[in-house]
């Protein structure tokens, strides 16, 4: 296992399989009355969150606690960052305090990489700018594999603001690593010109892609993008790229609907669609804890530096 987790590009299909298999064994822990194992007792995990987050931060916190690690939550607001401390000085402080792992979310792409230059512990990227969000990709891969029993050969449509989505970047790379076929769908303004190099196809026509999709993965669209003219109106966006009941009917019967959250009900996903049994959005959250336990366990030497 790599020392750090910065990008899905760093993981081979063997790595991914190992992470998901290990997550399988940890998922059972979450169903116990006492949801705790002693694997990381005495190890310190720092959650270093420079950006707002609900599910990722709580998920990492729960994952570390269920492994009996000591968890420190650090948010930019109310810390020395608010007094102007640089990322480097904060990192050196945490280093001096003996953090074994640092989970970082930052608005700047590449911040986790910078962190690896200053600390000796493991760095886990919990979302950096518009770059990558590998733990989200892994929990999504886990959720898809759990349903279909495999990843290879599956057809996945990732729909929406791909250009600014760290989730889409990581997931597309992960799916390609595992042999699934991805089609990135959205208005041309929100699809990156480099998409072909991610190992994915692109389409501007959601209705043409849906009938062939085993998984329909809806991305959150920020209404801020409208102001910047990436699309003319939220109404037109929803009409062209929103997952409505009518569009769900075009999906194959056993298709899955996913969303990384937080959802904009009524924009990228109709409110009633989000509540359909095919929508596995809560399962994604539940699986996120097991996958993060797996990562912390493997990276913090549950099995040494294997």
């Amino acid at each position: 296992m790599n020392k750090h987790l910065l990008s899905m590009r760093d993981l081979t299909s063997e790595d991914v399989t190992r992470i998901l298999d290990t997550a399988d064994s940890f998922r059972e822990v979450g169903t116990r009355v006492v949801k705790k194992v002693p694997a990381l007792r005495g190890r310190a995990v720092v959650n270093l969150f420079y950006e707002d987050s609900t599910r990722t931060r709580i998920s990492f916190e729960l994952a570390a606690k269920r492994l009996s690690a000591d968890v420190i939550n650090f948010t930019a607001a109310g810390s020395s960052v608010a007094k102007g401390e640089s990322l480097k000085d904060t990192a050196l402080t945490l280093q001096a305090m003996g953090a074994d792992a640092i989970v970082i979310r930052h608005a700047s792409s590449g911040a986790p990489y910078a962190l690896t230059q200053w600390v000796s512990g493991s760095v886990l990227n919990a979302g950096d700018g518009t770059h990558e969000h590998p733990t989200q990709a892994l929990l999504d891969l886990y959720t898809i594999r759990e349903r279909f029993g495999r990843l290879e050969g599956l057809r996945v449509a990732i729909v929406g603001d791909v250009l600014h989505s760290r989730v889409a970047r990581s997931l597309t790379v992960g799916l390609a690593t595992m042999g699934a076929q991805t089609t990135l769908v959205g208005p041309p303004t929100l699809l990156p010109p480099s998409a072909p190099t991610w190992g994915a196809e692109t389409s501007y026509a959601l209705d043409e892609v849906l009938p062939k999709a085993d998984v329909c993965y809806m991305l959150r669209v920020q209404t801020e993008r409208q102001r910047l003219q990436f699309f003319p109106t939220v109404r037109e966006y929803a009409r062209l790229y929103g997952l409505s009941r009518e569009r769900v009917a075009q999906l194959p019967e056993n298709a899955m609907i996913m969303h990384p959250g937080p959802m904009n009900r009524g924009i990228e996903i109709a409110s009633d669609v989000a509540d359909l049994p095919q929508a596995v959005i809560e399962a994604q959250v539940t699986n996120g804890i097991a996958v993060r336990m797996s990562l912390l366990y493997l990276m913090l030497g549950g099995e040494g530096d294997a």
Partner: protein
Amino acid sequence: MPERTIFRGVRLVDPAAGRDEHADVVVVDGVIESVDPAGKGSGTGEIVEGDGLVLAPGFVDLHCHLREPGWEDRETVETGSRAAAAGGFTAVAAMANTDPVADNAAVIQEVLTLAEKAGLCDVSPVGAITIGLAGEVLTEMGEMASLGVRMFSDDGHCVPRSRVLRMALEYARAFDVIIAEHCEDTSLSEGTHVHEGPTSEARRLGDTPPRPRRSSSRATSLWRASPEAACTCATSRPRGPLSWFAGPRARACG
């Protein structure tokens, strides 16, 4: 009985087929049956003496103004269609500078309905690129394209902000449409009448500094940066009529 018409001795002009000749053209039930050298066409039917007349495929006007809704005192879809048909135009693209502006599906639908009612030629309403032709906020091109709009233009207004124009060019790629941009930098041409040169100098007319239409290079470079985006550019003359370069899709003309 099939309806048979013989156009006798017309000057047949069809640039696409490389034709410019005098001919007899026989039309049966609205379909050309034969084209023979003048004097060789035969058979019965209504005879149209074509001496001094030109017979050509229907003309298409990519830039006209039918003024409706809003300016019915100048023109209506019906009167404009009538003029088009009288002049040999079988299809016209109606510019978006109506009142209200054709920047939404409701106005487009209104023009289509009026054109169907007139029933004299094909009318393709042109959708605005930006709301109110103001150059700031993109229109709902997707919804207008779903009604059949195939060209978007802010008419005689340029889209002054390069970012907005770039987004329009890229966004349009989803819909098999073209963006027709009026390439003029108004900061160069404001208050002017003619191009700068000996004529403007001799008469001391307000003139436009060297070729304001060079601003079209902006659209051309945007197009090069995004070659799949379709762009047809009109170059501007000071206050004069626009000269159109109606190229095939995805050709930028400067």
